[in-house]
């Protein structure tokens, strides 16, 4: 019961944040809304027993990554978004309806067809109970055994990201 209440609260915050992101005109507001979403999600992760992820979500995602965003927004001094008459008709007239239909289908599918609605998960019990499996220790073990190679490969990814940031953001002509 408590789990459900918590879920709905955080879910409402998530959706609210997401919608706010859409509604806000100034990018900085949108970014802050996204942080709300992320925070709420971190709590839902906790509900689902993902301790480690919840922490990472807050520290890395909502913390570091979003700060970067905010920083760039400030750097570029982006103002409120302007609506141009020659904007995209396709996106509004085709994309959005398609999106709504797609979402409807997906929601209907997951709630009515797959049987997943009969599986109940999460809640504070998970955190108190015996099988808290998403702790850093377990994740770390897995990360350095089965997922060793992907983990190592991410180094290449990060290297590229650094190089890319350097290359692209550097002023030309020096």
């Amino acid at each position, binding site marked *: 019961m408590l789990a459900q209440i918590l879920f709905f609260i955080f879910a409402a915050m998530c959706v609210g944040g997401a919608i706010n992101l859409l509604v806000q005109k100034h990018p900085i507001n949108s970014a802050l809304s996204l942080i709300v979403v992320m925070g709420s999600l971190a709590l839902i992760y906790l509900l689902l027993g993902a301790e480690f992820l919840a922490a990472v979500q807050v520290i890395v995602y909502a913390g570091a990554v979003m700060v970067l965003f905010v920083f760039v927004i400030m750097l570029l001094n982006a103002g409120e978004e302007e609506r141009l008459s020659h904007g*995209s008709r*396709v996106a509004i007239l*085709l*994309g959005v309806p*398609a999106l709504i239909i*797609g979402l409807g289908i997906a929601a209907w*599918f997951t709630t009515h*067809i797959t049987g997943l609605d009969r599986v109940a998960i999460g809640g504070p019990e998970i955190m108190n109970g015996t099988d808290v499996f998403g702790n850093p220790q377990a994740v770390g073990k897995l990360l350095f055994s089965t997922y060793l190679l992907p983990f190592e490969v991410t180094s290449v990814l990060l290297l590229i990201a650094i190089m890319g940031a350097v290359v692209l953001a550097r002023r030309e002509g020096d």
Partner: protein
Amino acid sequence: MSMHLWIIPLLPLAGAAINGLLGKRFPKALVNTIALGSTGAAFAYALWVAAQFLALPADQIPYLETYGTWMSTGNFSVHWGFWLDQLSFVMLLVVTGVGFVIHIFSVGYMAEEGGYYRYFSYLNLFMFFMLMLILADNYLQMFVGWEGVGLVSYLLVGFWFTKVSAANAGKKAFITNRVGDFGFLIALFLLIKHFSTLEYAGVFKAVAPFAPEASAGLLTAIALLMLVGATGKSAQIPLYVWLPDAMEGPTPVSALIHAATMVTAGVYMVARSNPIFSRAPVALEAVAVIGTLTAIFAASIGLVQNDIKKVLAYSTISQLGYMFMGCGVLAYSAGIFHLMTHAFFKGCLFLCSGSIIHGLSGEQDMRFMGGLRKYMPWTFWCMTSATIAIAGLPPFAAFFSKDAILWSTWSSGQHLLWLIGIIAAGMTSFYMFRLWFLTFWGEYRGPNPAGGGHGHDADAHQAQDAHATSGAHGHGTPHESPWVMVLPLVILAILSFVGGWIGVPESMHGPDTFNRFLAPVFTTYAPAGIAHAVMSEGAGGIAAESSSELAFSLISVGVAAFGLFLAWYFYYKRKDLPAKLAASAGGLYRLVLDKYRIDELYGAVIIQPLIKFSSVVLWQGIDVKLIDAGVDNAAHGAEEVSDGMRHMQSGNIRSYAGWVAVGATVIIAFMVWRGLR
């Protein structure tokens, strides 16, 4: 023993090839030597062959020579081969003989012309093809000659190619002939389809078991199709139109090709195919009717023509009609007989006209002639002989031959045809004597050219041919032709006189040699009931009495004499009358003068619509507007679509995301649906 018949056609061919390829560099004398030599040799050889042939026992006739396969596929094959029987024997001698004579004439006539070597090369080539035609032992080889002479006719009619009318006439001759050949070809296809052979021997044997067809059947079809071919080549209704125009060619050509030999090929073909025609009464009827109609139709046009060669041309058509008439009533040998005599007298007439034209420096209009008797006596006398001959007055050649045809027509029961024929005979007499009077009698009406051009037939070509200018050879007044031209006239004139004597019928107590000689050709494969009729000149021959035959001869002579009288009256005695008559006849006269405007009719009904149709409907319509434009439109359509599709590529990232979202939704929807299935 082999007679090596191949030598006969090959001699002129060799002459043609040598003159054609190298003649340009030869002096005229050498060209003459080659051309005349080859033709003369062919004639001489033909005479030798003739002697050999007459010595052959009857069972070795037809005499055959084959030389190898021409084409062979499946069960059909045709070889090169020659066939000599009495019919081709007659033709052989006529063609080589008359041909040689006209070659001689040409030496004089063409002496001043450019393209001398070309002319003789063509002429020799003509001899080759004509000999192929008459000596062939199968229909396909005959077709070779058949088309070949058409070709040479095209080349020679268009000899003065710079003259538009000459070029047109050549083209017209060829195409009209092709229309006829089309029928001939179909006939050949029928033969192949049903008898798998085109050899005379094979075909005749194959048709032998057939009885005469009561109504139209296979043989009738074949015969009628052959008749189409024959009408083309022999200038019969409805394909006669090319022959008058063909007079654009040099006059010796008109004499050789368009009077004596080539145009008779149709008659020869009908006679040659007698086993088929005899079994197809419907076709025979058609032959007779067409022949008769052509005879009177052409004669009527001939009555009013002013161009001397045109008169002769229509006369030729008319005479060919007689030959067809004869064949159509089963009197094949009479037809061939007339063919032979016609070769003599019409050849003579044309050569005489050539001589006149030569003497008058190219004048062809009889209204500007007259009184030439004094200037060119040789020509006059020769012309007189031939004119009497064609008019059918005894004892000249055509009297016997034409009479044989008319008598056969009557005796076969075709009284109406006979009547028309006899009227046409009267017309013939009239227009020939009209020509005779206009040309030789009275006063010379032509201008007195002082240093004017000397050349013939053509006016336009004078401008082109530097040699043909008068300066070298100018005559002020009409003059007699040189001996090389006169000699042939004389030979042919004599033949016009005596040529008929080998066919004096029994009714006149003659030996009927010609008829008897040819009889085997027409009886060997004749159907049972007809064999005897053919033998005695026409279906009704046996029944008729010789006295009535004589009586009918007298009618003919009477009619001819009447024609002579009228001509004398109108064109000698009362020269003002024709103009008055013409004025009073008005429209009719004009119509006849314009040759019934048949050419215009063909032009308006067939040629112009065809060109319009091809150009407007087929080419501009279907090809350009429908197919091409369709294809181009499809291509443009693709480009339009492409251009439209570019707008999917608006450059806006959000639109792109929109497309992705749409695609994703479709895929999600589909996969969900698939998952549920």
